């Protein structure tokens, strides 16, 4: 069970941008002797530590839990949001996925609705505003009925859970050529609309969340499914079809009054 103690020498092309309105550029850094068991963010820590001791300004990037669940980390790595491996976030990507001598391009998630704050950190509050438009069940604390009073078929509960696994990282937007947020929105609508608790507001939810998404400047879905391919939680693009159906029904009901 020996852990391989291999190390990598890498050339990094890192996006640097002083603020939302500043022009950005790629900066080249040589990263030598990176252990292959380090995570990608630990590799950036090593690079930043060196920049700091040499008197420079370290690369700003978002991260927090470093175990793939908080959704705070981002990065487009060699053109792929969250890097080359499927079903993982950047913080779960380890350097053993690269080879010594590789050149790695590191960019922020790019979308009009996600303005750059600095370097690799972007502002994703648009996602919060979409949830505020209807991504909840309107239940007041204290008014809930007994939990087992309403059975939910296991397949519905499991399907709702699979949709609810979305971590709101925004990789789907970064991967989409239209910067559409349909995968994110459809996952939340599917989660809640599948459950009996979410049914009373199902129509309104689909309508208002899609409208909020449009208002934030996200693009439309043209069924390329890049979003599904890069989603670290493997959220299914099938939900987009469900959302479209819910949205159509809601729109018709809305028009009919």
């Amino acid at each position, binding site marked *: *069970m020996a*852990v391989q103690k291999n190390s990598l020498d890498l050339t990094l092309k890192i996006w640097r941008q*002083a*603020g939302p309105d500043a022009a950005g550029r790629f900066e080249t850094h040589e990263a030598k002797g990176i*252990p292959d*068991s*380090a*995570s990608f*963010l630990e590799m950036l820590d*090593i690079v*930043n*530590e060196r*920049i*700091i*001791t040499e008197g420079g300004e*370290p690369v*700003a990037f978002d991260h*927090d*839990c*470093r*175990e*793939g*669940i*908080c*959704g*705070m980390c981002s990065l487009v790595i060699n053109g792929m949001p969250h890097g080359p491996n499927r*079903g993982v976030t950047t913080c*779960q*990507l*380890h350097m053993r996925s690269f080879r010594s001598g590789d050149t790695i391009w590191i960019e922020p998630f790019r979308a009009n609705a996600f303005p750059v704050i*600095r370097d690799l*950190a972007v*502002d994703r*509050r648009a996602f*919060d505003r979409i*949830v*505020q*438009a209807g*991504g*909840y*069940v309107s*239940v007041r*604390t*204290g008014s*809930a009925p007994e*939990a*087992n009073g*309403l*059975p939910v*078929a*296991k397949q519905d*509960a499991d399907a*709702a*859970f699979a949709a*609810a*696994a979305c971590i*709101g990282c925004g990789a789907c937007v970064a991967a989409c050529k239209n910067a559409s947020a349909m995968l994110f929105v459809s996952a939340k609508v599917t*989660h809640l609309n599948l*459950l009996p*608790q979410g049914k009373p507001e199902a129509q309104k939810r689909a309508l208002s969340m899609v409208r909020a998404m449009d208002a934030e400047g996200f693009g439309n879905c043209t069924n390329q499914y890049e979003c599904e391919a890069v989603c670290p939680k493997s959220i299914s693009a099938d939900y987009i079809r469900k959302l479209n159906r819910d949205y159509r029904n809601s729109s018709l009901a809305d028009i009919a009054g």
Partner: protein
Amino acid sequence: MEKIQVWVSDVVLLQPDRAVLRKIKPMFSDSEAEARITDSRRRSDTPPDGAPSGPLASKWTRHKDTSKLISPANRRKYTIIVVGSGLAGASAAATLSEQGYNVKCFCYQDSPRRAHSIAAQGGINAAKNYQNDGDSVYRLFYETIKGGDFRAREANVYRLAEVSASIIDQCVAQGVPFAREYGGLLANRSFGGTQVSRTFYAAGQTGQQLLLGAYQSLSKEIAKGGVTMYARTEMLDLVTVEGHAKGVVVRDMVTGKISSHAGDAVLLCTGGYGNVFYLSTNAKGCNVTSTWRAHKRGAWFANPCYTQIHPTCIPVSGAYQSKLTLMSESLRNDGRCWVPKRKEDCGKPPGSIAEEDRDYYLERKYPSFGNLAPRDIASRSAKEQCDDGRGVGPGGLGVYLDFADSIKRLGRKAIEERYGNLFQMYEQITGENAYEQPMRIFPAVHYTMGGLWVDYNLMSNIPGLHVLGEANFSDHGANRLGASALMQGLADGYFVIPATLPNYLATQKPGVVSERDADFKRVEADVNERTSKLLSINGKRSADSFHRELGLLIWDKCGMARTKEGLTEALRKIPALREEFWSNLRVPGSGDQFNPQLALAGRVADFLEFGELLCNDALQREESCGGHFRSEHQDEGEARRDDDQFSYVAAWEYTGDLARPKLHKEWLEYEEVHFSTRSYR
């Protein structure tokens, strides 16, 4: 005192026959009240905890019945400041807004949905007794008190167990997709330290689903206008006006702007201080700053030495390591912990070690709980094996968690269904497939039971300052049982604070303080000065390098085993390290920009002060209990408590001199349960 009697029932309750129940009944009666130690030395010098007298089971109801109320029309006149948006903060902010209060909520992450509660894996306890296996409010209460090694408050813990069932109702109504059985009803699993199945879960992502439920409720209230959310905003100090907590000073982490927010009460829901160890399962951003700043403004810090080392984490792989990853305790339902019996076998592939050459040490030492022994005990046992030279993996700092038997018994598919995401996470980090070879695990810092001192209303000794969730000290004693952190965070936020906060608010005229007052300007000036100082040192070392050095020292001297000698050494080294920090720190960039290094430096500065209090607390507690293990006080590796001398809450007051904090004692009086030696054998 009859020592072992109570926990003989761990064994006898497996066969609940009437004769046995008759036999154990007196243990819970008042007949042994005289066994309680009540001498004059034991006079608390903390404020009263405020729990009503009378029978334990009706205290909470009575307290609610007699608590003050604020009428619906008046609630909007009160502004409540909630710092933190995890389970405690989000649930409190949402619920108080629903009731009509004006709420301001702050979090350092870019969205309230990212608070570290999201990473909780295994589940949430509730005394629903859906499994019909003998669970009850009393049982959950008793197991929590016992699990905490008789160092928690009876009334608080009973209340926690009592409201647990309502939490599940609330979360299900929000659309939290808990695991269900084929009949459509809720499923349960078992957790350490209990012999019933009362843990509700959503695969290995229970914290995520509960937090999203609370976040969605919070979002609903933000949309309604009841809550104003400040994301990427960090609390840097507490403002008191005439001794009452009336606001906070915060830094906008995007623009760097430092500003004040005034309110009628402040709720700190800012989590624990596990990152004082540098390596922990906490998120990188978790910090002690808000509670430490409140401490320096007068709030007492209670029991900081009660830290939880979780037994099942992925071992450290190198010096560059930035954090540790937990593997849920639920894995111990189906995984068996072992190490080779012989030292010379440790380097061999695990599959080549014959069954008879393996030491399933938890099953050997604790036959009635086996692999589901509580966390502190399982962690210490793992350390014992490694100290004995029988650890596995790099540096011999690991033990096996083996699923081979369960896979044989239940099939790989069943194990995949239960723990698929955890096995995947393990493979991502280690490059190893745990379906084919055992996991390697090692204990890591995970949770902190200590926190700011609070009374039954969750109010600290500073009037108006309330502390919820992991940030307070009140419910878990010296060790927390698995799946109880989520329960406590949500109990505090959804059900306790909405009922107890009016007791304070009703004494206050709303809206009388303003950010323009001199008290605010003074604290703002302090914060600006500290920030400028951090930026102006211009030394050679990064904040991270100081944090690592502090963490290694604390882990070494105040980790799984502590000695007087080691703690004294740490107390000598910490001030020296702090001095170097303030003379050789380098924070690049400026204060008026997005500057993660500046935020980190401020947090490390506070850890460097807090670490000293942590070691002081560990030094004064000359006993072993729960997560606090003093090597001098043990019976062959088992913690030896000293109830006579130490059954108190240690509440520390800041005196202006970090080396000489003042100790206040709150003696724990048990009316319902009796001290007993905690045995899981």
